[in-house]
């Protein structure tokens, strides 16, 4: 197994793709945390803990759940909204959950509006602007998610979670695979269950604002 660990950055001017450092994707029924394969149960707990600990826990829904292109996508979108509402319900003083879409993968120039969107070519702009210290990608096509996750790891200290409908993402600090409505709902339940057991991150030294 690789000694490399997928940790919050800023890691490097050009950090390596985690797969090239020997990090392997989980098999069905598994997840990974920092590049180490774990059970899904453990990943739910850790993802919920990271959400509850963050000052600005944020969900980044991508096109696959932003548009009702089939029945499953619509149900998933409802589940994502439920997770966001749960984050708001469970928010402690000083916490500001956000829901910022990634509607478009095309690069935008001169720059995106970081208050309302995130773009895979400039993801750090949204992270920095909103001081996001924990985020979850969902419904983003895998290639674009990997680009974003690696750039975020390179230039920010934001903790990244991927709720991937396919095989998962090594470049996230925590990744589920085969995402479904049930998995999103279970994560929301776990957040609710752990409410009050996790302290808000005290220092801003490792916040998303670093660069």
């Amino acid at each position, binding site marked *: 197994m690789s000694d490399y660990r997928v940790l919050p950055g800023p890691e490097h001017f*050009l950090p*390596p*793709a*985690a*797969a*090239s450092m020997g990090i*392997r*994707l989980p098999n069905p029924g598994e997840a990974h945390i920092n590049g180490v394969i774990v059970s899904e149960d453990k990943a739910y707990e850790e993802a919920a803990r990271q959400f509850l600990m963050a000052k600005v826990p944020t969900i980044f829904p991508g*096109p*696959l759940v932003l548009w009702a292109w*089939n*029945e*499953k*996508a619509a149900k998933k979108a409802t589940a994502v909204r439920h997770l966001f509402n749960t984050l708001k319900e469970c928010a402690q003083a000083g916490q500001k959950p956000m829901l910022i879409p990634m509607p478009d*993968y*095309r*690069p935008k*120039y001169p720059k995106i509006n970081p208050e309302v969107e995130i773009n*895979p*070519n*400039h993801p*750090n702009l949204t992270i920095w602007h909103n001081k996001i210290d924990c985020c979850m990608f969902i*419904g983003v*096509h*895998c*290639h*674009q998610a*990997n*680009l974003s996750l*690696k*750039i975020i790891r*390179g230039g920010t200290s934001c903790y990244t979670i991927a709720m991937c*409908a*396919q*095989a*998962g993402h*090594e*470049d996230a600090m925590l990744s589920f695979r085969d995402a479904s409505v049930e998995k999103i709902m279970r994560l929301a339940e776990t957040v609710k269950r752990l409410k009050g057991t996790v302290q808000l991150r005290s220092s801003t030294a490792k916040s998303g604002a670093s660069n």
Partner: protein
Amino acid sequence: MAETKSIIGTQNKKGQTYTDAWKLLNEAPRTPSFFTGSEVIKEAIRRASCDVMIAYPITPQSEAAALIGELFAEGYIGDYFRGESEFAVMSQCAGAAFGGARVFTTTAGPGTMRAMENFPMWAGSRLPIQMIVTCRGINSPLSIQPDTLEIAYLLNTGMLVWHAETAQDFFDWILKGYMVSEEPDVHLPLALCCDGFFVTHTKDVVNLTPADMCLPPYDPYRSPVPCMDMECPPVRMMRDPFVMKSNYISYATHASWQQEIWAAVERSRKHSIHWLNGLIDAENTDADIMIVASGTAVSQGREAIRLLEDEGVRCGLVKVKTLRPWPEEEIREATKNAKHIFVPEFNVTGWLAKEIKATIPNHHRVHAGPHVCGGMTMPPEIIVNEIKTALGMKKSFVMAGRGS
């Protein structure tokens, strides 16, 4: 994300039953058949549920391309046409794959070189196109004969590159290739190479799966990039290439994009091991002498080992099946006991020996040869002589060159 309704067990318009790929390739009955490599390509594609095949004539792949035209006439392929050149063919393949089709093509030698610009584009666009490369000479003066130099140019395109030894490899790997390259965490083009003529134009016994069973179709909704409406393509994707914008983040995006392609090559390792039963085959790895080869050089190496055994010299063999992903750890492990490693190749530069030297410790153990090129055959006796010379033994055979 696609609405998944299993079609396994249902039939296509030709009456073939969509069959779980693992069952098709590992459990379905096999019928021994006596075919040329080109005919085997046709038979594999008959079972591959291909949507589009685009052809352009160049020896030695022309026969396979023409035979697949017959499959189109029979109704086994959705669309088939001849491009204006190899460059056009590969661009048209990209268009079809962008639109969500399972795409197949074949090329060789100068055709591969002419189309080269497209291959990193395929990989960068995450298009799981399969391209058969029936290797031949690429340099002037013209040669249509077997020579594997073109493979060296493919190794850094971001494509998966496999090197088949036999027609049986070809049949199985065409079908398995789609299973690996279409995985959403891989989703890369595959260059499935063989040594032209030696494999394409010779007949061999090949065990075929039933013709009334075929692969499940490609599901573009599992793609890691959006499937495009090719009647109304998002032109801005092409109009605003990142590198045209002079700021830090666009370079970072492009760099990350390239890294992601090679990450996908890495991810193919797991799937390739699953489908090919390992990235290499190894025999007698406790021997002091190892032959490491790919393609038909493996067959010649195997025969050389038999000749050496007759003289009491024990020798091991590594058959390298995948060049990308590169089986670094496997080769290091298989050659750890070897004092001498011989790498016979059908090309002048010895690209496989260079890859191996960069992989293993104590690379002075690697003897880059024997080499033949330009269409010469590689008699096993010259491998035997190369080994005996290195060991300080008397040569067994007097081998005069063809021109002498």
